[in-house]
């Protein structure tokens, strides 16, 4: 067993991450009021992705897992993003 995994994340740290997540939710809602055309949805997805990274890194303890876990997560997300990217490339050249 690894030792680094047995160190609990402090309550303070967890609460700070939660506050960050709430602020980012507020940002998402505020940005949606403006119309930046296609950019609006891209900004919303970017903010959502920052929130996901915070949840994954701290709440799901990826920060404390060994490198193999992070590589697996990276490959999974890479596949998803690649599929989405090819879809959009396909549609934008029709």
């Amino acid at each position, binding site marked *: *067993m*690894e030792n680094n*995994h*047995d*160190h*609990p*994340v*402090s*309550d303070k740290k*967890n*609460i700070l*991450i*939660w506050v960050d*997540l*709430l602020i980012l*939710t507020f940002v*998402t*809602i505020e940005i*949606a009021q403006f119309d930046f055309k296609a950019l*609006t*949805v891209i900004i*919303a*997805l970017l*903010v*959502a992705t920052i*929130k*996901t990274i915070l*949840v*994954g890194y*701290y*709440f*799901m*303890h990826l920060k404390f*897992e*060994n490198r193999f*876990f992070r590589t*697996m*997560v990276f490959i*999974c*997300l890479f*596949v*998803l993003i690649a*599929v*989405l990217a090819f*879809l*959009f490339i396909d*549609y934008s050249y029709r």
Partner: protein
Amino acid sequence: MDTSLHITSQAVHTRRDDEGKRMGMWLFLFTEVLLFGGLFIVYATYRYLNSEEFHNGSARLDWVIGAINTLILLTSSLTVALSVSAVQAGKMKKAKILLWVTILFAIAFLINKYFEWGHKIHLGIFPGMDGFKALSGGESLFFLLYYFMTGLHALHIIVGVTFIGFILYYMKKGEVSPDNYVLHENAGLYWHLVDVIWIYLFPLFYLII
């Protein structure tokens, strides 16, 4: 010679493999990511083809309910994370209370969803009902995806809360303890994933973007 081999292999089998258990959970989570990922691809394609109608469909949803549910889920993710830290620190009572709070949040989320869907169904906007038939093609696609994706997500909430209920039961039996909490961590991982999926569902369906 033979016996010593036998003993070694037994020792290997009785050793706990927490890392392997967490890895198994992560592998399962990847299948969930690709399940919802596929649905997001369907959403992206139809949205691209019917951007005006998706915009109008989104305007019919109450973003305040969506925002409240976002707050509920983010906070429930916090309580699960705090609970895992509490178990690691040996504070079992605190961990149990935090899990009960999480269950309450999950129930609040589902009650909110019930009223939200109930209102839509009251207006007849549900596949097969008159209000739904009156929608334009693109808007009916929006609402089909809305019901399917938020419905599948709500199902995940129910599964996640059941998982957490089992953790409370195992805590009572002493099978989840400060020395052995990998099951608790896995329930937490599942719950956080459900939270992450909602993080994407909320802006894409409720905010008119």
